[in-house]
């Protein structure tokens, strides 16, 4: 994970800054949160951004996201949780 965070810093400084500065659910290269027992993460690295959903039964799915999709989704998630 540290590698992910470090490499993300090259991707979009404004995105990383916004996420790092926005509260407890922020990660340097993405964001995460939990709802109804499902844990969500969006992680960006040098290869792009990917969203993950972890279900209570242990199954995990994911989808590739564009940077703008990740930025907007994280912005809304973070603001919603403050």
């Amino acid at each position, binding site marked *: *994970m540290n590698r*992910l965070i470090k490499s993300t810093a090259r991707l979009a*400084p*404004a995105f990383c*800054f916004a996420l790092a500065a926005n509260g407890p659910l922020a990660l340097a290269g993405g964001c995460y*949160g939990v*709802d*109804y027992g*499902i*844990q*969500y*993460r969006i*992680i960006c690295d040098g*290869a*792009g951004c*990917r*969203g*993950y*959903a*972890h*279900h*209570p*039964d*242990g*199954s*995990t*799915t*994911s*989808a*590739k*996201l*564009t*940077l*703008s*999709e990740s930025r*907007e*989704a994280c*912005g*809304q*998630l973070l*603001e*919603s*949780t*403050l």
Partner: protein
Amino acid sequence: MKTAFRFLTASLAALGLSAQVLPSDPVPMFWGPAGELIRHASGALRVEAPPSRPTLARVIPLAPDLEHVHVEGGWFWANRKVRRPGGLEIHVLRSENGSQWHFVARWVPGKGQPVCRILALGPDFLATSAMAPFQHGERQSRAAVLAQGRGDALHVKRLVDLGSKHTPQGIFVPWVVAVPDGWALVHSRTGHLWTVRAVGDHIQDRAFKLLASVPDRALAGNMDLEVAVLGCQPSPTGELLIATRSGEAVIKGREWAKALNPELGRPTWIDPSIMKDPRPQSREMFDRALEAYGKRQDAIEAEVAPKVLEAFPDLLWWEMDVREGSLRRREPPPGAPTRIGSVEVLKAFRFRFAVDGNLIMGE
């Protein structure tokens, strides 16, 4: 918060979730009143001047906290998130020259009023939300027209109809492309497109579908599709030039990819007890498992993507007259390709117009 996460659920949990090759987002560009071209470039706006007005050429640095900088009605516009003791506000700013910005209006997110991007639209504003919907009465939509009342606060004037039976769900971040008197919202993943324009004293919104074979239910985000739209830019005369994959590629591409490697898009399994364990070593284990899953999916995609592209290489070109509301297939512009030759080309696919109206591929 719960609403926002429910929409994220639709995006991540319900999707078939293969790892499509995503092309670059188009660079936002706008045409000024004197025929100048204004485009985003590395934290700045670059103004390209027409030969008749060479003094218009300049580079305008942008403050890093300005978001969604755009041009409308001869003005520069931007959003800025401002934290107040009562919560977040989104300020709409306006500038004559792109350097000095002035407060115009505020949007206070709350119930039924999600965090959003706000674009000038005649006397009103167009807003789009990535996940939670705007609410107006009993209805909901991811896009709304906002108006300023007596004070400086914005309120929902009306919703934009993005479809009654099927409407976008999941993460919805359409490209916003400037068109005469308004905006085109382009859902690049499905090929749906809406125009919202301030015409006279009313708002005109129209819905289009670039690829007839992609069903409207794809808007729900639970169909596994190849990305449909590869580029969309406004021409100097206001028409939109659009490039898409073929309908067959969008519908069948993922199916083809999964036939090549059934592991593509398959969920993984991580022991739930690890997720619940707050100890750092468990968190580290969880992170490593997640990273490995993502990298494995990326590797599979890298393996199958060239074969999918080889099977469905066609590139279609379209022209939309937003004033007339007409959409038609067209021949590729001079110098533009009719096929996508490689995954690298697909990832980097971009085009834009130069100030003289010529098309530039790769920017």
